[in-house]
């Protein structure tokens, strides 16, 4: 799969996918999108990188680390990082739900703030649900990438 066409395409589209994913995540509260979709899209970008450059590219080419051959895939540093990502994501989601308890509101209560007159954007709305959605995003990305890289390494 690691053909020249594939690599060239991947170089062009992967950054675009990341930007789209970020925008889907941020505007999810008001337009189609959200943590789940952004997470799946981000995972797709990683999958394309794997497809175009091979499984070790991220470690060797991007992070500049050496890869020990024959190491168990589940012990791989990247897999550990992915695993952490979804663990943290789950923690973020739960903690963001616990915060309202401090203010005497039920578990998972959400609220939002509206800022007017912000430069360029003029009208900005920050929803507390964004933190929860970020947890969703992390779990989806971490979970899917763990599965993908472990199964892919087989």
């Amino acid at each position, binding site marked *: *799969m690691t053909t020249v066409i594939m690599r060239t395409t991947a170089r062009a589209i992967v950054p675009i996918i990341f930007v789209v994913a970020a925008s889907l995540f941020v505007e999810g509260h008001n337009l189609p999108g959200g943590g789940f979709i952004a997470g799946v899209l981000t995972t797709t970008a990683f999958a394309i990188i794997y497809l175009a450059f091979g499984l070790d590219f991220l470690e060797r080419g991007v992070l500049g680390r050496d890869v020990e051959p024959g190491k168990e895939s*589940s012990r791989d540093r990247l897999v550990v990082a992915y695993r952490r990502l*979804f663990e943290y*994501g789950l923690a973020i989601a739960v903690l963001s739900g616990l915060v309202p308890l401090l203010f005497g509101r039920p578990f*998972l209560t959400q609220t939002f703030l509206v800022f007017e007159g912000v430069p360029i954007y003029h009208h900005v709305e920050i929803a507390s*649900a964004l933190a929860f959605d970020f947890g969703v995003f992390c779990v989806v990305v971490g979970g899917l990438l763990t*599965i993908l890289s472990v199964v892919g390494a087989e």
Partner: protein
Amino acid sequence: MPPELSVVLAAVALPFVAAVSTPVLFRVLGERTGYAGVAVALTSFLLLATQLGSEGTVGLAWIPSLNISLRFAIDGWGLLFALLACGIGTLIFLYSPAYMHGESSLPRFYAALLAFMGSIVGVALAADLIAIFLFWELTSLCSFVLIGHYTADDSSQYAARMAMFVTVGGGLFLLVGFLLLALVAGDVLGSEFAFNLAAMLENPNEIADALREEGLFLPVLGLIAIGAGAKSAQVPLHFWLPNAMAAPTPVSAFLHSATMVKVGVYFVGRIRPMLVGPEWLFLFATLGLTTMTICAILAVGSTDIKELLAYSTASHLGLMIAGFGFTSIYGAEAGVFHLFNHALFKAALFLVAGIVAHQAGTRRLENLSGLRHDLPITTAITAIVALSMAGIPPFSGFYSKELLFEAAVEARHVHDIGVLGWLYPAVAVFGSIFTVLYSLRFLSLFFGERPEELGHVDRPSVMLLVSPAVLAALTALVSVDPEIAVHAIVQSGVDATAVDPHEMHVGIPTAYSPPVGMSAVTIGLGFLAYPFYGRIHGGVRAIPELIPPIGANWWYDTIVDGLTDGGAWLAARIHNGLLRTYATWTLASTCALTLAGFAATATIVPTHLIEFDAPIAIALVMLVAVMAAVAVVRSTSHIAGILTLSILGFMIAIFYILASAPDLALTQLVVETLILVIFLLVIEEIPEYYEVGLGRVARDAVLSVAVGATAFVTVLVTTDARPAGSTSIARYYAEQAVPEGGGTNIVNVILVDFRGFDTLGELAVVALAAISILTLIVMRNGGDDE
């Protein structure tokens, strides 16, 4: 006088508390833990004895929302049974340390024995159907542990499994009976009394009438009879009881004499006032007399002293069931009084059997006789209790057997039962002849010539003798003056089980009556036949060898082996480690169940399939999707297949866009892309081409069509049920999304604001999936290393 809740609760809870603390007790007391058991059992006994004469219900709320509570009813019958369990329990604990000296796993033994006693007291006093069932099954569980005490011994494990299988299985029938009964009682008495047995027994006629009206009378009666019959070893489920002799002797004495096996009899007596009638008479009198006769005959065929006693127990249980089966007052008197007498003499007999086995080192009948010189006190004890078992006047068993004969004769005066009116007394006499025979045979252990090969037999220690001596003394007391027992407890037991209680009188008959004649015939024929015991014994043994299906063990073995083989066969078919097999069976059964569900509820209406109207754009997109699906099947290479599959997925995304669901469309697009990429990642590993047989293709085709049809029908049915216009929920979300959640994307607002908890659950699912895949692959690698 109303009962005291604290006292009753303490009496029931104490054995359980003691059972839990047995390991600690054992560390402190060692083998003397048995004497701690004596203290516990005696305390429970005395606590319950303070409640003698009181009547009423006390209870704790347990599951108020379902109207289930931990309710205890105190009356003569429950107290009689609970006191027997605690009283005989005390003697068993007194006997155990000497008998079980030097055995292993004693903490487990005593813990199970204590819990066993507690659960029997629980059954005796509980007045809530669920509580009764709970204690009922607890007795089965404890007996399983006790019968299987010798864990290294195969026959002990076999017997324990069998007892568990039969009694717990019977208990399930009982549970269904209880639920039906609760259903009817809830209608008649109000739902707060649905499980309240005490309330049902206060209104027996209303419940019985309602049961008959609903057509549930016979099912409830039958289900309870199966449960009680399995527990009380009634034919044809009698075979587990003789096998249960694999348990240590103190357990046998407790299990066979006083308690667990009598739980069934006890419960039949308990509900007798409510369900008694012609069907009751026919069912229980026939069942009881059949059991009594068959097990008495089998007892004569036994070669082991414990086996003989075990069959005799089953036979006497039949006698009690038959007693309760007869609807006259004599029936109740026979059942209650014989339960009392049998507990005393059978416990003593088992303890004697234990002494003989312990001292002489063998339990085979043919090797044992003439022990009176070696064991003089034991001989005296045995003489009293064995003659009581035989029903020889003036020993205690005689009185209760007389009552049974009386009830059997009386039956045809109460109900019009035709030839059965003559058959019942005749069978009762016939069975009793064998009772006399095996009782004499047991007694002959101590008389006659002493065989040479027996060797030296030591005197038993005092601790082994105390318990049977106490029981024999009580038996002797009841024999001399049965009215003492009647006044103390039996009369109040009869009051609770009889429909129209009378004052009860027992004593040596002074004038001729049919029961006296029947007793004379029984005893006379028994003694006349005794010289031919060897031939009768041989004859009884020969029959099951000639025709195996007559032996109930044969049926049990055949069924259990059949189930085992069937299970193995089934497992090899559907659990063979191949993913495709699992997928086949899971999909096929899911489809079958779903379609059957739709068919059963008549949800599929064929006319709906014809009326459809869709915009031309949607129809076009769907047409492309269908064509892509066909192309997937027809594609020859994997790459082409995956790419065409993606066409299908993207068409569905377009369908979502057309149906104005942009969020769904976006998700579908992204997921579809990811799946395509993943497929491309793994495709290199898949072989280019499979050789597939025609049969497998056909099977897969059938399965695919079934899955597709199921999905199609499900979608059709579920979308068809959509309410016209927007529902109140939909309007609520649409109106509240901006003011409450601050987002104009309702789907996302629902996901994170309104139904955040659902999303959190889904996150947990994603995390779990990742962890399980990680674990699966790590474990597989670990397995390779080993």
